[in-house]
């Protein structure tokens, strides 16, 4: 697989897009989607490397990352709902009772 570099480049770009998104977006759900983008960029890296190295550990890792991302999604959405119930907003600008 001589084009490993292309895979790594794509995932690095995706990871950067996710990071920039987290830092610039205001809506908590969009921020969370950007975090998911980062995690999936990592998954792509793992799978490309796993194929390249001929070692299955990377793909096993991806299974766990997917599961963990699902658990995080569930907890994150629950926290957002709890916040929304008290505040009627999920804009992070409204997360302002505690000073940053």
């Amino acid at each position: 697989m001589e084009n490993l570099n292309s895979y790594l480049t794509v995932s690095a770009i995706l990871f950067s897009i996710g990071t920039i998104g987290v830092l610039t977006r205001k809506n908590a759900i969009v921020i969370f989607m950007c975090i998911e983008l980062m995690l999936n960029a990592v998954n792509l890296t793992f799978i490309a490397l796993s194929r390249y190295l001929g070692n299955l550990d990377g793909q096993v890792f991806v299974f766990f990352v997917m599961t963990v991302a699902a658990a995080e999604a569930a907890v994150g959405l629950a926290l957002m709902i709890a916040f929304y119930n008290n505040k009627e907003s999920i804009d992070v600008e409204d997360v302002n009772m505690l000073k940053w």
Partner: protein
Amino acid sequence: MLGTYLPILLVVLIAIIFGLVALTFSSLIGPKKKTALKLSPYESGCAPVGTARERFSIKFYLIAMLFILFDIEAVFLYPWAILYKKLGVFGLVEMGVFVVILFVGYIYVWKKGALEWE
């Protein structure tokens, strides 16, 4: 040569027959009350036509969350299913433990009333 494809043909046939039988019997013996709600594509979901920007109930999030959690666990069943025979009893026991843990979560969700729509 073609004989090797026979099992696939059989599976396709069984699938078609299964679908047909289910549709035929439910239309033959099922009760029919043709109200507007009953005829809509998603009887217990959102209205399929209309603005997509409509607000919908927060309860959908709960269902979605539970779906994600239990759905993703199926990912672990696939590798096990593929290597089922090679993994033998050990694999079966391990998967049993895994499913029991999931089941604990399911019972918790159920008893908490998260599956009730009200």
